[in-house]
């Protein structure tokens, strides 16, 4: 923006959108104001129905969990094991996605209900809630898709952007991604430790005693509950609830990984550099959130189980509005995108996830000068160029 004010006679396109979808500074400002207006309207509309909704989801989750634990207690009977594992998986998914994630964003803080307070909520997963609030609410949501700042890009483990320099370690990208999916809760738990920056010596291990202690305590408690206490209640048949609890954790892990990776990594999402997002205006911030996120299409039940992250775009534009409102907001956001000529990235789960898987595999290999891996893209372009020249001659 500084360039535009310094040379009022020759306005340049704003720096932030130079490498993306160009909008003028004025358009960006108007877009930001429109988004602010949506936010303001929904803030004013929040009320009893939002509270009733989240309490109903909490009630369903507690019921599913109690039923799941009960059935798994008798897990020696195969139908009880299957039903129990399914109920517990659903309970953990609801707890993490629609309840935990959204409540911890402060979406229900306006109710002043201590049970819905974002700062006090703790969830049924290995990651301590307070650490997640830092790495997610602040780091990821403020610096969304800024390579070098948003640590959700690859979680410090994967190469999810061309702007992350390649190293032979990334040959394992598909393998690391599979392991991350299976053990996602532990990946998330270790997230705030910034393991990759520890390895490079950027941060010092001794500064992280409190973080490590918090993680150890939470991981320990979760393990004690799922792998010792509830199995022990079944006495000699402990192995059935043990296996059921492990399976439920893994089902939740894979589901959460799938939904979350579809939020920012499908084809068409943009990444940003630290330089182009310096001194960002509110309009530019909205613009980055929009271009950096992708939506999933699906029915109401799908959206509840996805914690409404199928509306990842709306969630990133308005992270602290009650998530059940995203569906109605998405109509307005989509309409605004059409008017401004901005892309609105939405697709069914299989297509978006397929595109994420392709990206994980493609980025396992280094780019040469061209676009494709192993220089194939560059090679084919070069061939094409030669052919063109030959024909023109």
């Amino acid at each position, binding site marked *: 923006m500084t360039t535009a004010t310094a040379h009022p006679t020759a306005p340049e396109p704003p720096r932030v959108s130079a490498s993306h979808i160009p909008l003028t500074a004025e358009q960006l400002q108007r877009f930001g104001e429109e988004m602010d207006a949506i936010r303001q309207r929904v803030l004013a509309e929040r009320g009893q129905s939002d*509270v009733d909704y989240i309490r109903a989801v909490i009630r369903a989750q507690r019921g599913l969990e109690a039923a799941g634990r009960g059935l798994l207690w008798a897990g020696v009977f195969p139908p009880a094991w299957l039903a129990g594992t399914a109920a517990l998986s659903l309970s953990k998914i609801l707890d993490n996605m629609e309840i935990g994630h959204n409540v911890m964003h402060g979406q229900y803080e*306006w109710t002043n209900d201590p049970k819905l307070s974002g*700062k006090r909520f703790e969830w*049924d997963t290995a990651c301590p809630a307070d650490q997640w609030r830092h790495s997610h*609410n*602040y780091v990821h949501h403020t610096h969304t898709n800024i390579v070098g700042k948003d640590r959700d890009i690859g979680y410090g483990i994967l190469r999810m952007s061309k702007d992350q320099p390649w190293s032979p370690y990334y040959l394992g990208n598909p393998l690391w991604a599979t392991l991350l999916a299976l053990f996602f809760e532990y990946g998330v738990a270790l997230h705030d430790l910034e393991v990759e920056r520890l390895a490079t010596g950027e941060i010092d291990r001794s500064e992280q005693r409190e973080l490590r202690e918090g993680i150890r305590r939470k991981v320990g408690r979760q393990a*004690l509950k799922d792998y010792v206490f509830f199995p022990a209640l079944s006495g000699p048949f402990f192995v059935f609830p043990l296996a059921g609890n492990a399976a439920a954790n893994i089902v939740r892990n894979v589901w959460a990984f799938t939904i979350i990776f579809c939020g920012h990594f499908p084809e068409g999402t943009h990444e940003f550099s630290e330089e182009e997002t310096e001194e960002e205006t*509110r309009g530019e911030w909205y613009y980055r959130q929009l271009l950096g996120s992708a939506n999933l299409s699906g029915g109401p039940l799908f959206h509840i189980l996805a914690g409404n992250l199928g509306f990842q775009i709306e969630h990133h534009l308005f992270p602290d509005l009650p998530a059940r409102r995203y569906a109605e907001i998405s109509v307005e956001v989509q309409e605004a995108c059409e008017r401004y000529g901005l892309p609105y990235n939405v697709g069914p789960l299989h297509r978006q996830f397929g595109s994420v898987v392709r990206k994980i595999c493609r980025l396992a290999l280094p780019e040469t000068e061209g676009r494709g891996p192993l220089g194939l893209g560059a090679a084919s372009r070069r061939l094409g160029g030669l052919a063109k020249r030959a024909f023109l001659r």
Partner: protein
Amino acid sequence: MALKLALRPRLHALDTFAGPHGIDGYLEQIDPLLVRGECRAEVLDVERPTTESVTLTLRPNGVWQGCRAGQFVRVAVEIDGVRHERCYSPASREGRREIEITVKRHSEGLVSGFLFERARAGMVFGLSQAEGDFLLPRPRPESVLLIGGGSGLTPLVAILRTLLAEGYDGRIALLHYAPDPERAIYREELARLAAERPGFTLLRSYTRVPGAGELDGHFSPAHLPEADPCFAKAETFACGPPSLLDAVRGAWANGLERRLHVESFLPPSFASVGEDGEGAVRFAESGIEVENSGASLLEQAEAAGLRPAYGCRMGICHTCTCRKLSGTHKNLITGEVSSAPGEEIQLCVSTALGDLEVEI
């Protein structure tokens, strides 16, 4: 009750195994009063003794530790999804398990209006432990003088009922100020007690209906000898609107203040709203008070040497959210102004309008 007490330590041990939501997270789905980590109360009975007041009988859950006569409790009610907290002094006598509160409806009062119009038996409210030092001393004083106006009468009724239930043999006098007999709360009970108990003197002044009570007009020092010739020696408790309390303080301002106890609270809609950059900001936990500079509360806390948690500094991440204890704040993004106590506010996008107190 005995069963509950026996179960408590065991339930506590189970909390570790119940997971992140604790046993309470499951118990409250069965019955909201079963929680052990939070004080709550169920409405047992609702009466509307006058055209503008409502009397509620509340049954607290096992967490509540009881209340001494004169103390107050904070009651939290949910209105359109938002929890609002207000202070009420129970009128019930000390030692009684049920809490009786009488709420006067104010024309602009959100909570008092809700309670008057919509409170019904079976509702569950949030409750705090009893607070306040507006207390009857032990051993009991030789004589007690009570001065009350409006709904400020309730802690005085609690003191009166407690003394009478104890078989107190000293003198009790009550000066009661109300606009007219129709709006005087506890009118019949007080009249009955005054007739039955020779040690209890009741003097009423109906400020808008001269001649209807034993006294006339607003409080004046001339009323005191009529209530108790030795009023200066009596332990005196006064509760009511600020104008009444100011008048009472004036009458006692000659070295006798140590026998005077005063209690005042106002509904937040009546609290004065200051301007940007006026008043003082108090950080309760750290005990620091600074002049309100008008900057965001986060910046003011940092300028005062505090290090509150923060993240985005633009109102999206809720890292800096904390509880406002009192005062009026303005949200810099939405422009919303609110005076309700006990609200969760985002420090980075909130400023104080006049005096304000936050938890940090």
